[in-house]
């Protein structure tokens, strides 16, 4: 009986490790220059950047809602940046992303103890409070939403973005 419990535990650990591995592998290190890279790679597309962290209570509640939002709008250009105020552990970040159904999204994690330049690049006024959402319009104009996101407002914003001109 005891042996069985051990085996179950071992399998559970193995299973959770294998689920998380793809997400960990795709989790990109956010360092100096990463913000510009994100902006460049999404140029011309309305983009939603959501900043979160594993130890942030409201983020724990909010992340599954982001997962649901991504299922509702799979076409949306969504970037998730883990930027906890405590140092970020890749395993825990990946596990929480998987749990929220966000493992396949574009995921980044802060990867430098000198966090000031990372925050400054995103917003010179930002001292690291999370959750935080930045809506970047096609032409680059950014709108900041502090705290837990209002998804109705995000939908309105998305719908208000000019469709890409199709050319002629």
């Amino acid at each position: 009986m005891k042996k069985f419990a051990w085996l179950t535990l071992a399998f559970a650990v193995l299973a959770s490790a294998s689920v998380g591995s793809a997400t960990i592998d795709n989790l990109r290190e956010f360092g100096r220059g990463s913000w510009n890279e994100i902006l460049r790679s999404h140029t011309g597309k309305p983009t939603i950047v959501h900043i979160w962290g594993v130890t942030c209570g409201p983020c724990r509640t909010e992340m599954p809602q982001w997962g649901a939002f991504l299922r509702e709008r799979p076409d949306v250009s969504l970037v998730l940046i883990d930027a906890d105020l405590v140092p970020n552990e890749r395993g825990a970040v990946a596990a929480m992303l998987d749990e929220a159904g966000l493992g396949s999204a574009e995921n980044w994690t802060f990867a430098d103890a000198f966090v000031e330049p990372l925050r400054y690049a995103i917003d010179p006024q930002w001292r690291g409070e999370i959750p935080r959402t930045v809506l970047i319009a096609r032409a680059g104009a950014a709108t900041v939403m502090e705290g837990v996101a209002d998804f109705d407002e995000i939908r309105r914003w998305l719908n208000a973005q000019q469709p890409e001109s199709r050319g002629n």
Partner: protein
Amino acid sequence: MSKTILLSACAVLLSSLLATAQMSHQHGAKPACEGTTLACATKVTPTFAPDGTLWLAWDAGGFVSVARSTDFGHTFSPAVLVNALPLALDWGPDARPAIALDRQGRIAVAFAVFKDKEFNGQVFYTHSEDGGQTFARPAPITADAESQRFQVVAFDPDGSLFAAWLDKRNRAPARTRGEKYPGAALAFTWSTDHGATLSDTRLAQDNTCECCRIGVAFAGPGRPIVLFRNIFDGSIRDHAITTFVNPTTPGPIYRVSVDDWRIEACPHHGPSLAVAPNGDYHVTWFTSGSARKGLFYAHSSDGGRTFSSPMSIGNLDRAPEHPSVLAVANTLWLTWKEFDGTKTTVQLMASHDGGKTWSPPKAVAETSDYSDHPLLITNGARAFLSWQTLREGFRLIPLEEFS
């Protein structure tokens, strides 16, 4: 038999602590080096002994170390390790070891360790009666097993030791009742035998914010003043202050400022408190409330009952953070960190009229990598900035030329 069980229980506990200590290597701010020396420390707590000697307590490589300097930080005595085995020391962004000395050179040190992955902590206390050559074996600061962090130790003007910390002991009974217990209680204890033994723990206030350092000063013997981020109704994490009526009776809790910061998360950004020779309280803090955002300063001439309207500090476009305030004779000092896009600077302002007007901010130190909080200390006559940075190591900068 029971001894064997106890020993193996200790071994299990020890190996889990060691494992956590190793894990914490990847978690904490990356140190400059892997050892236990001052150069490898990411958090350094300074204090001046009444005899003018500078003392530092720091955590590095899983150990809390203590050393003294008689030449204002140019050279240090060989460091003494306070704990015998490496521990998973609390690497929370606002946590640091605490150290205080009395007039006879007795030393009190308190530090926290992480017990698990949920950031539950345990505060240990130790003291030295031989001028820091040896320390007693660190012992839990309280018998309660739930969680303690953000400890502070300070000797009052009569030489009694006051210790305060954030304590989650009331969380478990709340859970049993099916209730949530937000935050942590502000707990305290005293030692009336020069730090050798501590009295039973008492609670000053339930449901304070659980992740910010607290500010401690004295209104007189047996009368600590504690400044802390409280949780007001509706999850509003604004600052509150209490002045003890006597050693065991906290006074009324006054709100320092209605910033209206509704947040159900950890700001990791605690306040700082100083008392001027005329008894005025001077406080500085960070908020991101709906009423105001940024760093602020205010003063009180009525024992914390009312405060001046909050004065904004620093350049908002340079993310000012981690403010510290100090009163030395008739001069007040305020310091904080800013980031200009390439480097972090420590900004400084002085006031000679009790905080009514301040000199323009001036950068007094800079670095371009990870840095600890800038801290202000005094030897009674002069003001100093203490700053540990990854690149430059420890610096103690006298401030009189900037006044």
